[in-house]
């Protein structure tokens, strides 16, 4: 399968921090790829280095086989970035901004005007086309950024925390639109703090932490590799105190019971024996695999613990 993006040993240093410490991984053409990591992990730096907003100190990034530094004209035509920060331009209306942005890419004429109309309509911006960006709400500004990123019909779409600070309704609209673009064959790279969304949308995920790739795999494979499963136990006597190894397995205490994190390979009988030992009167037990959030927290907190 051909590659949409290839990161090869990318390094970026800032005066007081090494933001990227030799990041290498590939994103396949047509993928819906999630880039996850805690704040300061280097996600935005990596994305910005790919789009030309940041110059990496060393290493190489290729988009559709072209180097983002030496072949920047080709790679910037192939990439559409929705930046994390909201952006305004007090001098122009939304339509004017989209026309100017088209001009930077050498796109004009009726076909382009039709595409701008379609974008405005699809992102529910048609009524605001003549408005200045300063007059818009945060959610509306976010839509404008998406329209700006798509104005040149890029093959690879990069969304840096696109749903940060937007309401539920808009979030759903954005994801529906993004899924549609993905179904049309676009490669989508997404960073988000909403891990349940990454789990639902992304077919592959990389977890970045402190400028390094902590894990990369198909989302389902990453979830199944997680060494734990979770037992939700409803008990009749939640006031009973836990004894023995069970105390260490509690990850959540609920009014009617507990959530225990148990080794995937251990037998359920052992856990049940410990519950009996603690005198728990079990009413119901349900088991589930880890969520992406639990995998993420496990991987990133392990690193933090090791540092301490």
């Amino acid at each position, binding site marked *: 399968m051909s590659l949409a993006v290839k990161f090869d040993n990318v390094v*970026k240093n800032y005066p007081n921090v090494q933001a990227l410490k030799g990041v290498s991984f590939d994103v396949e053409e047509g993928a819906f790829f999630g880039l996850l990591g805690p704040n300061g992990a280097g996600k935005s*730096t990596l994305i*910005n*280095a790919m*789009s*030309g*907003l*940041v*110059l990496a100190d060393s290493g190489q990034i290729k988009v559709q086989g072209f180097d983002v530094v030496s072949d*920047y*004209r*080709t790679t*910037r*035509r192939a*990439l559409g*970035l929705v*930046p994390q*920060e*909201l*952006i*305004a*331009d*007090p*001098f*122009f209306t939304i339509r004017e*901004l989209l026309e*100017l*942005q*088209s*001009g*930077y*890419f*050498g796109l*004009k004429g009726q076909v382009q005007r039709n595409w701008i109309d379609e974008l405005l309509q699809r992102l529910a911006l048609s009524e605001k086309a003549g408005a200045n960006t300063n007059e818009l709400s945060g959610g509306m500004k976010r839509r404008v950024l998406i329209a*700006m990123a798509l104005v040149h019909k890029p093959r690879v779409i990069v969304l840096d925390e696109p749903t940060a600070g937007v309401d539920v309704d808009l979030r759903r609209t954005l994801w529906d639109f993004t899924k549609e673009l993905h179904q049309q064959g676009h490669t989508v790279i997404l960073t988000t703090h909403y891990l349940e969304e990454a789990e639902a949308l992304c077919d592959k995920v990389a977890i970045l932490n402190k400028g390094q790739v902590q894990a990369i795999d198909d989302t389902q494979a990453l979830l199944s590799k997680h060494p734990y499963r979770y037992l939700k136990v409803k008990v009749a006597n939640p006031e009973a105190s836990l004894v023995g190894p069970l105390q260490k397995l509690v990850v959540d205490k609920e009014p009617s019971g507990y959530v225990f994190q148990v080794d995937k390979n251990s037998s359920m009988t052992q856990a049940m024996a410990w519950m009996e030992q603690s005198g728990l009167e079990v009413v119901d037990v349900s088991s589930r695999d880890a969520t992406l959030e639990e995998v993420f927290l496990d991987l990133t907190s392990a690193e933090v613990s090791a540092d301490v």
Partner: protein
Amino acid sequence: MFNFAGFWALFIKEVRRFYSVMVQTVFAPVISTLLFLLVFGQVVDSRIETYAGLTYSQFIIPGLIMMALLQNAFSNSSSSLIQSKMHGNLTFVLLSPISAFEFYLAFVAAAVVRGVVVGVGILLVSIIWFDLSWQQPLWILLFAVLSAAMMGGLGMMAGIISDKYDHLAGFQNFVIMPLTFLSGVFYSIHSLPEFWQQVSYFNPFFYMVDGFRYGFFAQADVSVYLSLLVTTVFLILVSVINLILLHKGVKIRG
């Protein structure tokens, strides 16, 4: 390969930006320059000796035009760049397939347009009241364009380096303003004491004003070719520094 469409779109954007606030960017400098002319011209018209056969008012008109042209060309690129950085909309340009050279050229060309529009505005209003000749119009045009380009480039440098409006204001008030006022706008340097005459020769703005004035009166403090040489050398120098800054992404590409 030159991305002409990209360059043109950015150039048009920069021109439309100052056009949309024309009262502030064109009319205000025209009016304030005419006030200079009114006050200085009327009050000291007969008291200061300039070139033979010229009143003081006639003498300072080219200088005032050049001063406004220089300051407005500088303001156009510097304020546009720092505003784009502050609002974040510079990102849109940085994500596009526009090269450092095309970026530079578009900003400088827009600065030249604003500088020349302001200059022409002052000239048109001045000739209503004052008898002004332009003996060498090509020199006038050449110095107007080269000087505006040099100042557009200098404004761009200031916009790139400045992190906030305060830095830019410092550059404007402590570098551009003194160099402009001490460039012979209001006087011929021959009327200065020897020491200050020598100091003036180190001010590049002096050559721009002097060469521009030569276009009107066919007389100047130094050879027009020397003025052309100095202006061109400074334009090249500023252009090279800007292209290096843009190519390296200093203060604009992370």
